[in-house]
């Protein structure tokens, strides 16, 4: 029995004449690691922002954790975590201060905050850095910290927008360990990425081209469907027809 | 040189892309010249004056009529005691009170001497002073007319001519002043922020690793603002001539050349600030908070510099806008030529050289 946590139908976003996201429809199930792929400019971030309640769709429907993206954006926000493409923790606050702040605004109690902070710091191996300003940390650690902060309130769904951009392979592995850990705890993970090896880690992936979803299935099935032996190749076959892009 | 032009083109693209900022950059000086040119005046008029007439006779009536006729005052006749007057001043509505004692005319005629009490709210000494002067001269005129019948011997009549600005308008003083103020702050701020912004976002590094000379990178950032500021100078001058009726009495070319020089000084100052600071916020606070009031006060268009204590007079020499204000006033209002302002020009040139010099020196230290 699969519980649906994200459900969209014909979800569309227009900016003037430009159709950034063109009638996308899909479902994501609880506990799933869902890969949301697409070339640059395909409309991934725009779609994700609509799902997070940061942007109102132009047409179509979507419900996140049972809440409507038009009317219940603030309810959605209580049940999701979000890690944006651009690093967005406060660089002039320390590691601990960031954790406490974001935990605090999500309504964690003082005791929860203390426990959570300890747990996170241990998990990330940042014991020595708790008093350091976030701005002074290496990118890899920043990203891991961002992720941990995004799931600090144990959301139903966490949205990750290119979380591993610019990070070394070892750190990427560690990052995915964190993702799996969250998924094991029942958090649904919705992740965009450029790295096709990462796509292989996902339960199911969708591939977006020019604002539309052109394929959606498990990595294994997609490879069969396109007669390819790697996701890289699948992606290439789909995305080379793209008109947009850089 | 070709590279330099490429860089300048890039900077222009940046500047022209941000329509909001561009709109503000051009709109702001224009609006300000208009607002201040029309609104600011040192003249004092429509001041609230209470008249407490304890006498109600011919003489007091005549004096009151004269005062009422003056545009300096908005009068109100009332009766109040000292205590009530105190609270009227405290409410802040009245600027001055005029008290006629009882039996004013009688005393004047019989004893040949009568008193009028004038009480001014001197929290603003300037207004108090001017209003007292106005009242005295109105009363003086009345007295003279009173004595007209009697031949006053040995009369000295001062004939006063107001040069350059016979109607004592605010514009001849404030337009050059606001021009110096606006150009200075806008130029300094724009250059400082745009360079520091590249530092903040890290794009400066990219430029600095290019085979292009770092000094030229910085200079190329200043060029678009030079042009923008010149456009501003043109629009300000057009406005002052056509909207404010303030003709340019001297050479337009000279005024333009001096304005260019002044803009260059400001750009150099902006560059210097940007080299010394690392965040936009600091750069902005310095160029605004730190410079707004000093520029306003030390330019000399509000307060006479010769009234300031000696150390401040010395400091005022360091403010470029002071020199530019003198130059604009001389060319625009007085219609003088270069021979009258070569000293001021020299000061601005020296400032430019100095600022560029220490900027380059500091910049090199940073790179090393």
């Amino acid at each position: 029995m699969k519980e649906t946590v994200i459900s969209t139908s014909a979800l569309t976003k227009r900016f003037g004449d430009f159709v950034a996201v063109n009638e996308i429809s899909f479902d994501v199930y609880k506990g799933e690691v869902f890969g949301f792929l697409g070339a640059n400019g395909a409309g991934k971030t725009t779609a994700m922002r609509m799902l997070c309640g940061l942007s109102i769709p132009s047409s179509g429907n979507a419900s996140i954790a049972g809440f409507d993206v038009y009317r219940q954006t603030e309810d959605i926000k209580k049940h999701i975590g979000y890690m944006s493409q651009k690093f967005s923790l406060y660089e002039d606050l320390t590691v601990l201060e960031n954790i406490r702040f974001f935990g605090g605004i999500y309504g964690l109690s003082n005791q929860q905050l203390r426990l959570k902070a300890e747990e996170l710091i241990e998990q990330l191996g940042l014991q020595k850095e708790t008093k350091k300003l976030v701005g002074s940390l290496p990118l890899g650690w920043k990203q891991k910290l961002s992720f941990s902060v995004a799931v600090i309130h144990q959301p139903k769904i966490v949205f990750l927008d290119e979380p591993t951009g610019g990070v070394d392979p070892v750190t990427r592995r560690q990052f995915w360990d964190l993702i799996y850990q969250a998924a094991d705890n029942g958090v649904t993970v919705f992740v965009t990425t450029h790295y096709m090896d990462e796509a292989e880690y996902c339960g199911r992936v969708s591939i977006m081209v020019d604002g539309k979803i052109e394929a959606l299935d498990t990595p294994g099935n997609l490879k069969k469907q396109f007669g390819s032996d790697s996701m890289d190749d699948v992606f290439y076959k789909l995305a080379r027809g793209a008109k947009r892009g850089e | 040189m070709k590279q330099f032009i490429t860089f300048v083109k890039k900077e222009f693209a940046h500047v022209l892309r941000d329509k909001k900022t561009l709109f503000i950059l051009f709109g702001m000086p224009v609006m300000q010249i208009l607002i201040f040119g029309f609104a600011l005046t040192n003249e004092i008029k429509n001041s609230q004056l209470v008249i407490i007439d304890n006498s109600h006779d011919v003489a007091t009536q005549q004096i009151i009529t004269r005062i009422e006729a003056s545009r300096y005052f908005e009068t109100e006749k009332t009766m109040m005691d000292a205590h009530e007057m105190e609270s009227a001043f405290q409410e802040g509505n009245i600027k001055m009170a005029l008290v006629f004692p009882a039996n004013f005319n009688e005393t004047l005629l019989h004893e040949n001497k009568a008193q009028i009490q004038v009480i001014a709210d001197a929290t603003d000494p300037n207004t108090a002073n001017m209003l007292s002067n106005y009242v005295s001269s109105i009363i003086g005129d009345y007295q003279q007319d009173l004595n007209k019948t009697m031949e006053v011997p040995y009369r000295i009549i001062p004939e006063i001519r107001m040069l350059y600005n016979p109607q004592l308008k605010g514009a001849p003083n404030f337009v050059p002043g606001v021009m110096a103020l606006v150009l200075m702050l806008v130029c300094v701020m724009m250059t400082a922020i745009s360079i520091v912004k590249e530092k903040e976002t890290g794009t400066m590094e990219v430029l600095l690793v290019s085979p292009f000379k770092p000094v030229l990178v910085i200079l190329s950032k200043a060029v678009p603002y030079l042009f923008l500021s010149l456009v501003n100078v043109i629009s300000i001058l057009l406005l002052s001539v056509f909207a404010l009726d303030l003709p340019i009495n001297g050479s337009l070319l000279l005024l333009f050349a001096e304005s260019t020089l002044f803009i260059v000084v400001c750009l150099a100052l902006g560059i210097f600030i940007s080299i010394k600071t690392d965040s936009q916020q600091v750069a902005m606070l310095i160029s605004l908070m730190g410079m707004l009031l000093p520029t306003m006060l030390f330019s000399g268009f509000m307060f006479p510099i010769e009234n300031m204590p000696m150390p401040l007079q010395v400091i005022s020499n360091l403010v470029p806008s002071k020199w530019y204000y003198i130059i604009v006033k001389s060319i625009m209002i007085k219609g003088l030529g270069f021979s009258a302002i070569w000293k001021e020009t020299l000061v601005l040139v020296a400032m430019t050289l100095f600022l560029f010099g220490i900027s380059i020196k500091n910049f090199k230290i940073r790179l090393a």
Partner: protein
Amino acid sequence: MRTIRFLLQKEFRQIFRNKTILAMIIVMPTIQLIIMPLAADYEVKNINLAVIDNDRSPYSQQLISKITSSGYFKLRGFDASFNEAFKLIESDKADLILEIPAHFERNLIRENEQKLFIAVNAINGTKANLGGAYLATIIRNFNGELRTQLIIPPKFNPIPQIEIVSSNWYNTHLNYHIFMVPGILAILVTMIGGFLAALNIVKEKEAGTIEQINVSPIKKHHFILGKLIPFWVLGNVVFTIGLLVSYIIYGIAPVGNLFVLYGFIGAFLLAVLGFGLLISTYTETQQQAMFIMFFFMMIFILMGGLFTPIESMPLWAQWIAHLNPLSYLIQVMRMIILKGSGFRDILPHLGIVMLFALVLNTWALFNYKKTSA
């Protein structure tokens, strides 16, 4: 409530972390408040005078020495011709020219009437006005003395004299510092509040951290309050430092009630901060926010009634001035600090400023959107 606490904790940490900015917020206004009033002296003294004495008679000598001993005028030169004297005006070395015509003394006695010519550099209206008036007064007095010298005083004076007894309340010696210090303090507090608030939200926009806030279930008014309160506190601190500086350096202690003063400042800061936040919600970059704030600051300051009186402005400009919160603060500062006005006196001002605060903050709240269209 708990959310606000976390927001406040964060904002205060950020403020205290950036030592450069903090130092500037505290030190810059203090220094400016110490120095600026010294520079802002309207008092017209040291008027530079050029004299052309074509008479060179005892009378003209007497007149000139009377003028120079008045303390208002500085003699810049004796010139042979008007053209020479005019050069002094052109180079700003002289503000006034007094021309005494030839045969001044002789004609005065023979013809009973004689003219003196005064030319004033009127570019700066105040100086021209007052300078001319002073000179005229001195000449009138001189004239009076001359008359008593020349005429054997009759037993009874046929000319009625009206004597004007002036008193200057609240500032007997017409001291400019008393006038300027509260006004400059008002400007400084406005600048600090306005600029910091304008930069704040837009800074989070530029850094991208606003996304992380927008995607959280945080309430809009909590967020705005979290931004407002720290700067409100900071504004009060700056204001308090300013009051201490005015007392220590200039000996100006508020005559009126301090609670009333702080009550008004509290409301005023809300208005200015609300305005800053409003600008912050409309702009994308710190640069834009700064320019817009700068534009309004110039208008606030120059049309605040400190440097030129509001009553003298044309009617449309007076309307703008009525929409300028700073003009109310400058008035109230003078009322409470210098005149000792009470709560009831400032009530109208307080009401208007509170209305500003309400409108601006509601508008800012409304315009800050966590979810974009």
